[in-house]
């Protein structure tokens, strides 16, 4: 491990922000270390975008403080901008310009010397796999390709820290996978990435995560460890009729609501052996088909659902 790996790139302590009566951020705390991929995970309305805007100095907090690359976003936003790439949810590409022209344009905005521009543009086209499409107008790109072009424009000034706000929302599964492969390349190049997503499967691809909900931190840590801190054990039922099965299994062996995961139903239980027996018996009595019933590992989504169902949450 390199010595600078523990360097704190972003720190947030007790950060608050309200819009009128709406408390968007109640008490946000987190630390992003150099070179890591950090995920801020939560649904819409959990405060993710507000936090990112505070970090680049677009908003002034109501309380608490933040440091980005050692600078205070409230008073030193200009210093932050030169080393940070920020990709908002709706990144403004020029639909009438081609892919290559959009990159050139952002290179000019960031005052990249002319000699450098062509080299950087070519490198980014290669890196984003957009080379074959460089002469296509941005307005005619698919959703996934637009996101890759937006990311490339964000990278034009070679930032040390990349802040991405839901880059894969509304993007199909194949394009999402490709986007995360590009983030892998960035990590290898040592770029620190702070990314928000509502997809729990993407959370698992981060080095460390913070789960947020309604402006507060629910849990933080390495994805596997956050999932493993689930307080009960999980019994999984594989079934061709997931919804009927979930309904039939509600409350079996004290499990509360059965949670659906595609063709799997998850039951949160304390005694696995008893529950395996009772679940099987109940499904047979209800004449519902199943392909397997077994203990499984709790997923991040199990943990998230568990945490947001708590009446009060502690960090």
């Amino acid at each position, binding site marked *: 491990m390199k010595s600078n790996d523990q360097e704190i790139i972003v720190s947030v302590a007790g950060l608050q922000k309200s819009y009128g009566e*709406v408390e968007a951020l109640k008490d946000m705390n987190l630390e992003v270390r150099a070179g890591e991929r950090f995920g801020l995970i*939560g*649904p*819409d*309305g*959990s405060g993710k975008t507000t936090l990112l805007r505070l970090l680049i100095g677009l908003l002034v907090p109501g309380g608490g403080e933040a440091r980005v690359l050692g600078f205070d976003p409230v008073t030193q936003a200009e210093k932050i901008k030169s080393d940070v790439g920020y990709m908002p949810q709706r990144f403004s590409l020029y639909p009438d310009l081609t892919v290559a022209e959009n990159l050139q344009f952002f290179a000019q905005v960031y005052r990249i010397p002319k000699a450098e521009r062509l080299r950087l543009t070519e490198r980014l086209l290669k890196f984003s796999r957009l080379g*074959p*499409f460089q002469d*296509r107008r941005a307005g*005619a*790109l*698919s*959703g*996934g*390709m*637009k996101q890759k072009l937006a990311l490339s424009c964000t990278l034009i000034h070679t930032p040390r820290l990349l802040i991405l706000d*839901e880059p894969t*929302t*509304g*993007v*199909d*599964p*194949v*394009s*999402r*996978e490709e986007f995360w492969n590009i983030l892998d390349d960035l990590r290898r190049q040592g770029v620190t990435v702070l990314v928000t997503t*509502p997809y*729990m499967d993407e959370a698992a691809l981060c080095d460390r995560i913070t789960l947020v*909900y309604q402006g507060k931190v629910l849990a933080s840590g390495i994805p596997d460890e956050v999932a493993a801190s689930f307080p009960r054990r999980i019994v999984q039922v594989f079934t*061709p009729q*997931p*919804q009927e099965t979930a309904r039939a299994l509600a409350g079996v062996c004290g499990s509360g609501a059965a*949670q*659906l*995961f*595609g*063709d799997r139903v998850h039951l949160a239980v304390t005694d696995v052996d008893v529950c395996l027996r009772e679940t099987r018996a109940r499904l047979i009595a209800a004449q519902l088909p199943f392909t397997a019933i077994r203990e499984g590992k709790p997923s991040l*989504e199990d943990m*998230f*659902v568990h945490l*947001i*169902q708590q009446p009060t949450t502690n960090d």
Partner: protein
Amino acid sequence: MSIAIKAENLTRRFGKFTAVNSISLEVAQGEVFGFLGANGAGKTTAIRMFCGLLAPTEGQAWVSGISVAHFPRAVKKVIGYMSQKFSLYDELRVEENLDFFAGVYNLSKQDANQRKEEVLAQFGLQDVRRRITGSLPLGWKQRLALASALIHNPRILFLDEPTGGVDPIARRNFWETIHNLAAKGVTIFVTTHYMDEAEYCHRISIMDQGVIAAIGSPQELKAQYGKSTIQEVFVHLIKGSQIESHFGLPGIGSTSY
């Protein structure tokens, strides 16, 4: 079983580009049908044709037996439509949004009031009926958007990425509601990028570069392609064809309209 939605060689071209290339399908009344596909595959173009918003270039489609090419306005009356960007008026109160949509569909005053009370009860919105819509959490707005789409009691409901961004519990509740509607005979035609949600559909189709690459129940498709999840089926189908289009016919399938 009666057919709610039918397409026969339905095609739409924009200039030289074929966005929807001769698709054929049938969706039964009361079925939950998942309409999946890559970005730019032609899903939105197809939905716009089914909803009577865009005329087909070739082929035909019928919704509730009505030809979308010949009677687009009649089609709009028998369907409900809800998109990811819930088309709600944030400044209006919850019940005023419902009044507004009842007006759009020309419900009589009596029908409008009766349906309003019904959907408020059905979606648990009675307690917030006087709230300003913009102040509601996203999950509640989603329920109001669905209530608005159902105010005229349509038998066919089109949902375009209805669950983007909502939390996992609201997502599950939403699908429970969808299945309750289907059990009452409402046909649901839904797009989503969440592959776990595809498993909750009776049947799905996967669209790629303007054509339907696969259609069947989730179990059938997983068996057909030897995969354990719909996510894997999707990646298998779309990725294979993307490699072809990148190296064979550059980019034809990836354009979005």
